[in-house]
């Protein structure tokens, strides 16, 4: 065979291989874990995380608070009115609440896109309730830059007194969103009220 033809032939083969490669390399989507989920699952998960973080179970803030208030007795430093930043219920609640808020922020974004405003509203009110407790317990906490899907990696702390008024705005927005028509609304996936969420929106307000 003519050597020039040979070179052309092999170069052609190589190029083809490379082109093929480029197509076949787009396989980096995780088949085990979805990159999108439905709003109902996010809501259930976030609500359960928030309730457990505030409640009296081992990862909940009501655990040390209950000891402080003499509702429960425990062999722990809480029994001497002491608590540290490393206490299990505190660190767990902190982490789980911010994860729940991440899920709520994702839920708000996705519900707005799909115009499922009932979900937006419930998520906004849940978020406001969670933050109100966080301010009560910790004082200054990250709020404006919190749970941005790690777009802000080191969120700044906001003053408790600056956060509170924003929570009322958030609740009002939530109530307004619930009032809108929404193709999908929370039903059994909402572990707290089911359908009558306007009550929920009004109760945290003074």
């Amino acid at each position: 065979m003519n050597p020039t033809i040979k070179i052309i032939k092999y170069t052609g083969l190589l190029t083809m291989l490379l082109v093929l490669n480029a197509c076949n390399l787009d396989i980096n989507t995780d088949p085990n874990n979805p990159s999108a989920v439905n709003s109902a699952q996010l809501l259930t998960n976030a609500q359960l995380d928030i309730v457990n973080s505030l409640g009296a179970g081992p990862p909940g803030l009501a655990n040390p608070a209950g000891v402080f208030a003499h509702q429960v007795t425990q062999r722990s430093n809480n029994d001497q009115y002491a608590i540290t930043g490393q206490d299990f219920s505190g660190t767990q609640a902190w982490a789980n609440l911010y994860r729940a808020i991440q899920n709520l922020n994702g839920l708000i974004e996705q519900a707005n896109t799909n115009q499922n405003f009932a979900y937006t509203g419930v998520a906004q009110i849940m978020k406001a309730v969670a933050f109100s407790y966080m301010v009560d317990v910790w004082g200054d906490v990250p709020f404006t830059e919190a749970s941005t899907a790690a777009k802000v990696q080191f969120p700044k702390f906001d003053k408790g007194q600056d956060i509170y008024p924003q929570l009322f705005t958030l609740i009002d927005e939530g109530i307004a969103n619930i009032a809108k028509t929404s193709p999908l609304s929370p039903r059994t996936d909402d572990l707290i009220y089911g359908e009558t969420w306007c009550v929920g929106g009004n109760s945290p307000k003074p």
Partner: protein
Amino acid sequence: MITNVSTVTPNTGNTGMSKRRLYAAFTDMTLGYKDFLFLNLTGRNDWSSTLPASNRSYFYYSGSASFVLTDAFNLKSKALSNAKLRIGYAKVGRDADPYQTLNTFRINLGESSGQTGSTRYNDYPFNGQPGASVASSAFDPNLKPEFTKEVEIGTNLEFFGGRAVLDLTYYNRLSTDIIARRSLPQSSGFSSFVTNFGSIRNSGVEAGLTLVPIQLSNGFKWDIFTAYTQNRNIVESLADGVEEVTLRNIFTNQPTPVVRPGEWFGVLRGTAVARDANGNALINPNTGLTIPDTKQKIIANPNPKFILAVTNTLKYKGFTLSGVVDYRHGGDLYSWTNQFLLGRGVTQDTEDREMPKVVAGVLGDANTLQPLLGGDGQPIPNTIQVLENNLWFQAAGGSLAINAPNEFSVWDASVVRLREITLGYALPKSLLTKTPFGAINLTLSGRNLWFLAPNFPKHANFDPEVNTFGNGNTQGIDFFAAPSVRRFGVNLSVTF
């Protein structure tokens, strides 16, 4: 056999599949000149599926030269039979694990999964409702390949026709843009972020010395092989503004393995005693016990400074007797085993219970963490006596073992060990000619026969070659790890 499928508990644990695809084009060229100078060049380009499209193609290369001095300069003599020099430079690229460029959700991750980022206290479905949550780790959509550059210089010297052989290598390896998990404050929405950051330098010396002191015509041979390795792995940098990365979260008030710029990889950060400017421990004047510092410090470096191993082999006719002794110098271990042996007073180390002891240090103020000064303006050395019985365990803290600052439970894990002795016998071939067997070997072996770790409590008889967290990134922690074992074996090997 499984007769009823409905009785089988389905495995819902960490099952999953992953796919990665890597294409590479590779070239390798070796040039030789007059049988004494050799040059080897390689180049390679990878295309990986685990990196984003814009960064998936990356090129790396190596070059090495070896020079046989004895041939080049005609130096060959009875004393120096071979001398060779090697020098090499290599750059190696590495891609990521699959699926680390796109954030994903976890479905129904509840308490019993035991995973980071799971809902605590409850499982899904909850009230019949499934749950979905962001994963605990966020991924970087702009991930790049990580690279390691290495320079290596070595020599190989043979004396007296191979009766003494010395192999020496120095290497210096710098890994950059390392793909790893960096912890984030949970308020960012995630507890960690997989991205490129930081650089680590590994440098060290490897030496091997073979000596054959006796080699007789009747077949008797005595071989000594000595291996020496020394590696320094220093974290050169982390991401901008990141002072420390936690390698693993250990429970409250226990040391945490971390990486910090300028420190060895995987040092332990833990609680320490407050000290004055001269390094003297501060002693509480009310108790005579130490005052804990409010800040954690780097308290241990689990990496050994060097490891030396000597293998002696004696051969005569069909018999082979071989023994390995090794010595590990340095490397710290945080040990609960020893902390509790001392704290509970169960070894002879703490037998003088009623004896008064004085903890070395100067008197300090437990609130300000400053030394108290005497009338002459000088620190006051501690003279307060404490009973041995109270020295090792204090409910309120301040002792030297249980409830003490972590730094008191760190020991230097240098250890010398008789690693192995084996005695083997191979049946002479002449006996086997009429049998169907090709070879018959019988070997008796004993492993881990003796050790001495001189820096641990004397009566604990503790072997520091243990690690609660296995062979991963987390080294130097013993949370009641299972002790090492001594093993004897008989091995019969028959070939046909």
